[in-house]
């Protein structure tokens, strides 16, 4: 059997079993334990060969399948033996239980597919952020009874949602965190952008990458450029965006300066 399907397509051992059942065109109501066990182990073995630290759930299922397969090879003991330490475990029952588990799981997997379609349709629809009606509202928040107020929990959840959203939007951010970002490099970048744009740029626009390290380094680069008179920053009013323009020292700025010289 070839392993063209990548493992990250699977949600766990049940999902993998369902895949094997489908691929081998097995009747889920009559699972050939020996065959499915061999195929499953083959798959797991293949994963081990690439030195993958297999998740315990996959191994547990492997053990379960092996136990079932070996019991099927043994003759059924006398009924008297049920008085022993361990009751006899009928492999037929185990097979039924596995079948039921697979059928149950498959139903929810299908339901998840339907939900995914719904989600996709819903994500095509956009709405504006609500207008700020606070000028009409009662502004004395403390007059709101405690039961009607937002709680610390609401606030923390809002914050966590924000962080989660940001994280999901930037799957690569952890890798970039570890990169060395020299200040000189950012200075060159800001100057190049200003020269190319040929008009003042907004403070926000130069912080294009929403990452903490990037933000700090870019900010330091900007301060350094201001010190050199290479750029001038202006803000006309409170809340207004700060505009960055080339300064008198811009022509003297050496783009080829060693980026690690800071």
């Amino acid at each position: 059997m070839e392993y063209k399907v990548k493992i990250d397509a699977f949600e766990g051992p049940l999902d993998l079993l369902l895949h094997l059942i489908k691929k081998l065109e097995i009747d889920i109501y009559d699972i050939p334990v020996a065959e499915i066990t061999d195929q499953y182990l083959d798959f797991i073995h293949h994963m081990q060969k690439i030195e993958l630290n297999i998740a315990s759930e996959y191994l547990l299922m492997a053990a379960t399948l092996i136990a079932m397969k070996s019991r099927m090879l043994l003759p059924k003991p006398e009924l008297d033996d049920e008085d022993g330490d361990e009751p006899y475990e009928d492999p037929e029952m185990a097979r039924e239980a596995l079948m039921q588990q697979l059928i149950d799981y498959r139903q929810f997997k299908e339901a998840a597919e339907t939900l995914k379609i719904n989600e996709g349709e819903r994500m095509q629809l956009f709405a504006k952020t609500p207008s700020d009606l606070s000028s009409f509202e009662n502004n004395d928040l403390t007059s709101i009874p405690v039961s009607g107020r937002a709680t610390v929990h609401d606030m923390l959840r809002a914050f966590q949602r924000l962080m989660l959203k940001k994280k999901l939007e930037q799957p690569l951010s952890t890798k970039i965190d570890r990169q060395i970002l020299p200040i000189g490099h950012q200075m060159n970048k800001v100057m190049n952008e200003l020269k190319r744009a040929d008009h003042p740029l907004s403070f926000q626009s130069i912080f294009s990458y929403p990452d903490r390290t990037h933000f700090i380094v870019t900010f330091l680069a900007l301060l350094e450029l201001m010190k050199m008179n290479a750029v001038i920053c202006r803000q006309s009013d409170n809340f207004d965006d700060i505009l960055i323009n080339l300064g008198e020292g811009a022509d003297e700025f050496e783009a080829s300066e060693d980026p690690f010289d800071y």
Partner: protein
Amino acid sequence: MNLKPAKIHSIIEGLLYLTGEEGLTLDQIGKVLPECTGQEITNLVEQMRKDYEENDESGLMIVDQPNGFRLTTKPFMADYAEKFAVIPKTAPLSQAALETVAIIAYKQPVSRIAIEEIRGVKSERALQTLMVKGLIKEVGRAEGSGRAILYGITPVFLDYFGLHDLSELPPLSEMMKHQNEQMDAYDLFYDHYKETINDL
């Protein structure tokens, strides 16, 4: 009522604009327009829904949400909307989260252990994601010594998947033959199986 239908129409449109993604509930419209009955409002909104839908010149449509509606752009607008950075794009749910929320929707109230039994894998992360997104909530505690947290879906779930109520979920393809029971052993498969044996 004193207001003309056209006027009421315009007021609702204005409110739908102001509330944007938060939307409006029928209740809220009723409070702003006390002279209208709920039926009148519902009829008018239905008319508006049709008008938007049939109007090729409009990029807007009315979408239902729990107990109300909101104004959104039509699906074809997605390409254009995404060109604007001001529109935050949310990441779709992972397969793990989708399976988990599906189980909760069909079997609520349900514990983490029961979910993991069905999925065959740990589902803690998926549960946390769903909690943060507000799609599920804690609805109680299981009886017994474990007192496991039980999860259920929220109105946000319905809204997120564009459903009016849970009855719109497609029926599960097969009847669940086993009642979902609380099991706290690690080897769920064997427990299940031993129970079957003991019942003989």
